[in-house]
């Protein structure tokens, strides 16, 4: 097991190196020049060159990447003389459009994204799994049919539409939330209500689509598991339907859900771009979309990409290990 995990960790590190390298190369191919973009109106070729040097873009792309990797472990200095700056390790770079170390920006954005992801996760798992199990148990009933309609709506409505609908009706029309409070960060430990009022609607928007998928998945898995031979054996033993459902059916039916949930959650930790944008949240998704669309802020793009990939890869590992605990067949394979 230890050998397996360390092997997988090594693989993770290699993958992340590769991801960052590809981001640098892709960025290098873009027909935009960040050095010119950050240059003000009275731009001269000399100023552009100076900016390029300041941004660290005046060296070959491989060197740029190496500087980045080096900075991750040793911290990094930017500019010279009076304007000199230092970002301590782990330095993801310095954003000249926001005048901050990227690490600081990420550290501020992450709690927002984490809050959104955690709340959404709790909502969709509770809703999706319970609806799915109920629909499966009452297969063919009115409730089951209603859940099918819910699944259809949830999977077909895009988040930007549900998000906008929520903003229009819940927030603007019925004033359930103070529009001024939207997007305000509150510490969940000192001000749980404020935190909840900030995140509950974006999280609900996000959870809506996921819950639909999870309802469908849970329903079909439970129905399929109920036809398994080992469920018939459980009945033949004389177990009650309650125990058959709880101990025998759900464990087998929900095991594949663990994989899906882990990966979906990790994906959200990289930032829910549309939801954050619609609700004006400054999470990882919000800042990365700004960095891409307006300022071509390479350090932020690299930073958010690496963080997002790291979450996905690490989640993959955790999911695989968890699965081995759930399913003994995997453990002994």
């Amino acid at each position, binding site marked *: 097991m230890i050998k*397996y995990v360390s*092997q997988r960790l090594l*693989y993770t590190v290699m993958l992340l190196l590769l991801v960052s390298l590809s981001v640098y190369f892709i960025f290098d191919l873009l027909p935009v020049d960040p050095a010119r973009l950050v240059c003000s109106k009275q731009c001269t070729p000399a100023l552009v060159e100076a900016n390029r040097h300041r941004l660290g873009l005046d060296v070959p792309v491989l060197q740029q990447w190496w500087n980045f990797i080096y900075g991750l472990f040793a911290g990094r200095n930017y500019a010279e003389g009076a304007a000199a700056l230092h970002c301590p390790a782990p330095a993801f770079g310095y954003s000249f459009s926001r005048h901050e170390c990227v690490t600081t920006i990420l550290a501020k954005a992450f709690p927002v994204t984490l809050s959104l992801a955690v709340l959404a996760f709790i909502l969709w798992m509770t809703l999706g799994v319970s609806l799915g199990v109920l629909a499966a148990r009452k297969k063919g009933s009115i409730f089951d049919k209603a859940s099918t309609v819910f699944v259809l709506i949830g999977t077909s409505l895009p988040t930007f539409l549900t998000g906008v609908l929520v903003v229009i009706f819940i927030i603007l029309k019925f004033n359930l939330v103070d529009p001024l409070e939207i997007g305000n960060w509150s510490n969940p430990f000192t001000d749980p209500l404020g935190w909840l009022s900030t995140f509950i609607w974006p999280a609900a928007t996000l959870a809506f689509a996921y819950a639909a998928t999870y309802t469908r998945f849970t329903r079909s898995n439970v129905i399929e598991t109920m036809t398994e031979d080992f469920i018939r054996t459980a009945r033949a033993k004389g177990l009650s339907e309650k125990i058959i459902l709880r101990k025998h059916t759900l464990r087998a039916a929900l095991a594949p859900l663990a994989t899906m949930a882990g990966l979906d959650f990790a994906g959200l930790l990289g930032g829910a771009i549309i939801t954050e944008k619609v609700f004006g949240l400054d999470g990882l998704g919000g800042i990365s979309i700004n960095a891409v669309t307006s300022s071509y802020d390479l350090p932020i793009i690299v930073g958010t990409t690496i963080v997002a990939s790291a979450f996905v890869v690490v989640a993959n590992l955790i999911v695989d290990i968890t699965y081995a605990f759930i399913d003994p067949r995997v453990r002994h*394979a």
Partner: protein
Amino acid sequence: MAENILELHDLKKHFPTTSGGLFSRRKGVVKAVDGVSLSIGVGETVGLVGESGCGKTTAGRTVMKLYEPTDGKIIFQGEDISHYSRKQMMPFRSQMQMIFQDPFASLNPRHTVGTIVGASYDIHGIKPAGGVENAVRDLLERVGLNPEHINRFPHEFSGGQRQRIGIARAIALRPKLIVADEPVSALDVSIQAQVVNLLDDLQQEFGLSYLFVAHDLSVVQHISDRVVVMYLGKVMESAPTESLFAKPRHPYTKALLSAVPIPDPRLERTRERILLQGDLPSPMNPPAGCVFNTRCWKVQDKCRSVVPEPVQIAPNHTLACHFPE
């Protein structure tokens, strides 16, 4: 040797097992088929029997070149086809055909019976006299199906009828050899007999040779001229059917025959059974020496260290055992 349609000389098929992940490594090999020799004469049926994991199915598929043999020779009509490429195999494909166990899984559900059976003609660019459709109708009639059902789909047929479709497809190009992999084991008893009789008739009519791979000894005994008994990738005993069933020499053959229940209660009540202990060892980790030594009641020290080589003890009768019956 020209009278043999197929000869296998020390055929081996090993599958590497790997550990998963990025740094996959060879963990070992499964010796699914480990030195099988046999020959099939024109118009002859050779039964290949054994329990699950003995390698009989792999052997059958390797003969068809569905797997590339690891070692040994496959000689078809005097020609060594062991390492022929896909392209080199093309002319042989029409002469050796396969029938599978699961008649449903081996028929494309979206194609009509006519398309399925007629496909062989297209693949090999053969234009039968009177057209493909007439040829297919004749074939369907020959295997006992209604030729009017040519436009039906596989799911409209029962299990036994689907196996007949599979047989019609196999004989379309008038092959010399048919490898039949458990062709009747998925069928009900009364249907099984129909299909066995059909295979018998077709053999008479077309002079076919069969390699009949099966676990059911009663069926194998009924249909085969000679029987090859496999255990964990190796041939234990190979003999003409009559002498093998009347006087098995290998302890495994004897135990296997003794385990088959006979539908005759009075006989069953008096019959002495040899009850083998334990299960088949894993093919991943076969025992040293004779592979049967863990379950053999005659086992001695020699069996645990020295692999018994197949020895010819009578015409057409080979045996791999240190202490035969």
